[in-house]
C-alpha cells in the first residue's frame, strides 16, 4: 500500500471520528498532566538540592551523646587541622530561634567572617559583603522569608532577640540573602559567631559542629573512619550520606504517589478497554468494507495501531507540555505545598526547569504501555472482522 495514501486516509479517518478520540485524548492528557507535574516537581527539587549540596562543606563533625546532639568542644578543631589532607576546618554555631507565640522559627547561623569558609556560597557572599560595615555593631543577613515575616511584624530594620539568660539583644538587619538560595536559606539569619553564641546560649568554648573539606574524594571513606576514631562521642557525616538521605526522601514522596497513582491507572486502563470495545464494535461495518475492498488483516491492524499511536503521542505531548507550563512557568500553585511543606515561613521558590531522559521515559512507559495494552485486544477483535459478517 502506498504510504502517502495510508497516511492521508488515516488523517481523514481521525478527523471524521474526532469526537470519539477527543474525549480519550482529554482524559489521558489530564492524567498525564497530574503525573508529569508531580514528577517534574520532584526531579526539579532533587536537582536544586544537589546543586545546593555541591557547595556545602564535605564533612560535618559534631558531638553526640546517647543519640542526642550536644555542643561540640572547640578544641576538636585543632585535632582536625593536624590530620593530613584536611582543609578549611571551620567551626559553626547555629540553631533555631522560636517565636513561641506564632510557632514560627528562624535558623540562626553564626559565621566567623574573618576566616576562610568551607561553604562556597557563603565564601562568595562574604566576598561581596562590606565586612567592615557589617562587623561594626550587631548586624545580620537574613533570608527572603525572614525579611517578609519581620516586615509584616513591624521589625523593619532590627530585631530584639531574647537570650537564654533573659536579656534582650538588639540586632540590625544588614542585607537580604540572594534569592537563588531560597530552598535552604529562606528562613536563615546569618550573623557573627559570637553574637550567635550569645543568642543560642553556647559558652565561649563551644560550637554546634565543625566542618571541613577533603579535596580528594577517594580519601573520603578513609577520612570518615579516621575522624570517627578520634573520640567515642564524635559523629562525622559526609556529603554523600546527606545526598543519599535526600535521594531517599524524594524517592519516598514520589514513590508513594506513584503507588497510589497505580489505582488511577488501572481504573483508566479498564475504562479504555471498555470504551474501545464499544467504539470498535460500532466500527465493524467500516472495517468490513475495507476488508471487502481488499485490505488484509495486517493492513487493518497496522491502520488501527497507527491510529492508537497517534492518540497516545498526541495526549503525551499535550499532557507533558501543560505540566511543564504549570510547574516551570506558573510555579506549580497548590501542588508545591505537598512537596515543600508550608508550615514555617512562606517560601517563594521557583523551580529550576529540569527535563531529563529518565523522567520523560518514566512518564511515557507508565502511561503508554498500559494504554496500548488495554487497546490491543479490542483492536485485534475488530481487525479480524470478516467482510461478509460485517455486512449482515
Amino acid at each position, binding site marked *: 500500500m502506498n504510504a502517502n495514501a495510508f497516511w492521508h486516509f488515516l488523517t481523514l479517518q481521525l478527523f471524521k471520528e474526532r469526537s470519539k478520540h477527543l474525549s480519550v485524548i482529554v482524559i489521558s492528557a489530564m492524567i498525564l498532566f497530574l503525573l508529569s507535574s508531580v514528577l517534574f516537581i520532584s526531579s526539579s527539587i532533587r536537582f536544586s538540592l544537589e546543586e545546593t549540596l555541591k557547595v556545602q562543606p564535605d564533612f560535618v563533625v559534631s558531638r553526640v551523646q546517647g543519640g542526642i546532639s550536644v555542643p561540640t568542644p572547640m578544641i576538636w578543631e585543632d585535632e582536625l587541622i593536624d590530620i593530613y589532607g584536611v582543609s578549611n576546618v571551620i567551626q559553626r554555631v547555629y540553631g533555631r530561634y522560636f517565636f513561641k507565640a506564632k510557632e514560627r522559627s528562624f535558623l540562626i547561623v553564626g559565621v566567623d567572617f574573618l576566616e576562610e569558609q568551607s561553604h562556597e556560597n557563603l565564601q562568595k557572599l562574604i566576598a561581596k559583603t562590606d565586612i567592615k560595615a557589617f562587623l561594626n555593631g550587631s548586624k545580620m543577613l537574613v533570608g527572603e522569608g525572614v525579611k517578609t515575616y519581620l516586615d509584616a511584624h513591624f521589625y523593619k530594620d532590627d530585631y530584639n532577640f531574647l537570650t537564654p539568660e533573659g536579656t534582650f539583644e538588639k540586632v540590625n538587619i544588614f542585607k537580604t540573602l540572594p534569592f537563588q538560595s531560597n530552598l535552604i536559606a529562606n528562613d536563615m539569619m546569618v550573623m557573627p559567631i559570637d553574637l550567635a553564641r550569645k543568642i543560642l546560649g553556647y559558652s565561649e568554648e563551644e560550637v554546634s559542629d565543625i566542618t571541613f573539606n577533603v579535596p580528594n574524594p577517594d580519601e573520603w571513606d578513609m577520612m570518615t573512619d579516621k575522624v570517627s576514631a578520634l573520640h567515642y562521642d564524635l559523629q562525622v557525616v559526609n556529603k554523600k550520606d546527606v545526598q543519599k538521605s535526600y535521594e*531517599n526522601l524524594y524517592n519516598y514522596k514520589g514513590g508513594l504517589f506513584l503507588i497510589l497513582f*497505580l489505582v488511577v491507572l488501572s481504573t483508566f486502563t479498564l475504562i479504555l478497554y471498555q470504551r474501545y470495545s464499544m467504539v470498535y464494535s460500532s466500527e465493524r461495518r467500516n472495517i468490513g468494507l475495507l476488508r471487502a475492498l481488499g485490505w488484509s488483516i495486517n493492513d487493518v491492524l497496522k491502520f488501527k495501531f497507527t491510529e492508537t499511536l497517534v492518540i497516545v503521542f498526541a495526549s503525551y505531548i499535550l499532557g507533558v507540555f501543560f505540566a511543564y507550563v504549570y510547574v516551570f512557568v506558573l510555579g506549580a500553585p497548590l501542588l508545591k505545598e505537598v512537596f515543600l511543606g508550608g508550615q514555617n515561613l512562606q517560601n517563594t521558590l521557583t523551580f529550576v526547569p529540569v527535563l531529563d531522559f529518565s523522567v520523560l521515559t518514566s512518564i511515557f512507559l*507508565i502511561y503508554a504501555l498500559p494504554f496500548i495494552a488495554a487497546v490491543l485486544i479490542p483492536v485485534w477483535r475488530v481487525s479480524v472482522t470478516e467482510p461478509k459478517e460485517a455486512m449482515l
Partner: protein
Amino acid sequence: MNEVLLSNQIIVFLLSESTLFILLLVAFVVSLKVLVKWDFESFMPFQFALERQAYLVSTIILFVFVMKFILVVYFIFSIDALSLLLPGAMCGAGVIKANVYGSYLLVLKLSILFLLTLWFYIHYYDMRTKNHQWFKHKSWLFSLIFVFIVLELGLDFSYFSNIDTHLPVSCCSALFGQLEGANPLPFGLSVSLLLVLFYLLYILVILSLKSGYTLLYILTNILFVYIAYYAVVYFFGTYVYQLPTHKCPFCMLQAEYAYVGYLLWASLFMGTYIGLSDAISTLWLGKTDPKSKNIVVWLLSLFVLLCTAYVAVYYLRNGVLL
C-alpha cells in the same frame, strides 16, 4: 521498607514488566490452543477462527518485542541511577552485583532479546508464505521465550526486593580492576593477544558472513562477542575513561562519557542479534535476507571503528598510548 522499591524508575520498570507479562500470558494461552489444534489443510470454521487468533498472538509479541528493547535500556539506566543509593557503588556494575540474581537477570534479558529477534525473523518469513509454513516453528519458539520471560519476571522481583541498601557493594574497580596479579582474560590471553584476536575475529566474521559459511559465521560471531566484551572492558574502556586503571563495562553508560556505552553495546549486540537470527533462519528455514547481512556489517564495523577511534584520538592528542 526497602528503599529501592520506592525509587520511581524501579516502580515504573516493574509495573511495565508486569503489564507486558499479563499480555504475554494471554498470548501464551491462545498460542497453546492454536498450536495444538492447528491444521492448515482443514476447512472447518474452527480452523479459520484459529487463524484469526494467531493474529492476536503475533500482534502481542510484536508489541512486546518493541517494548522489551526500550525496557532493557531503561533497566540499565535505572540500575545506574540506583548506584547513588548503594554504599560503595559508583556505577551499574556494583548494583548488578548487589545480590546473586543481578548478573543472571542481565544475561537472561539479553538472551530474551535475541530470541525475540529470531522470532521476528521467522514471523517475517512465515507471513510471506501462503500456507503459514513455519507457524509451528514460531509458536514453539514463542513457548520457549515465554518460559524465559516467566523466569525473568521472577528474577526482576527477587533482584529488586533483595537489594540491601545498607550493605556495601564493590565498585567497578574492585570487580574488574585490581585482581592482585591474576589474569582476568579468558584462555590465558595477554592484552596484546586479545587485541590481535579481536581484529582477526572481526575480519573472520565479515568474511564468513559475506561468503556464506553460515555455521562458521555463527561460531565466530559468538566468539567475537565474547572477546569483544573483554577487549572493551580491559583495553578500549581505559581509553574511553582515559585512565589505565579504570576497567568497567558500565561507567561508560554515564553522562560523563556522553552515554557512549549505549551506542557501543547497542551496535555490538544488535549486530549480533540480527546476524545470528538471519544465520539461524538460513539453516532452519532455508531463507536468507541479504539486507540483514549489510546491516550486520554496518553495525559491527561501527562498533569496531568506535572502539578504535577512542584509541586513535587519544594517541593523536597525547602522542602516547596508555
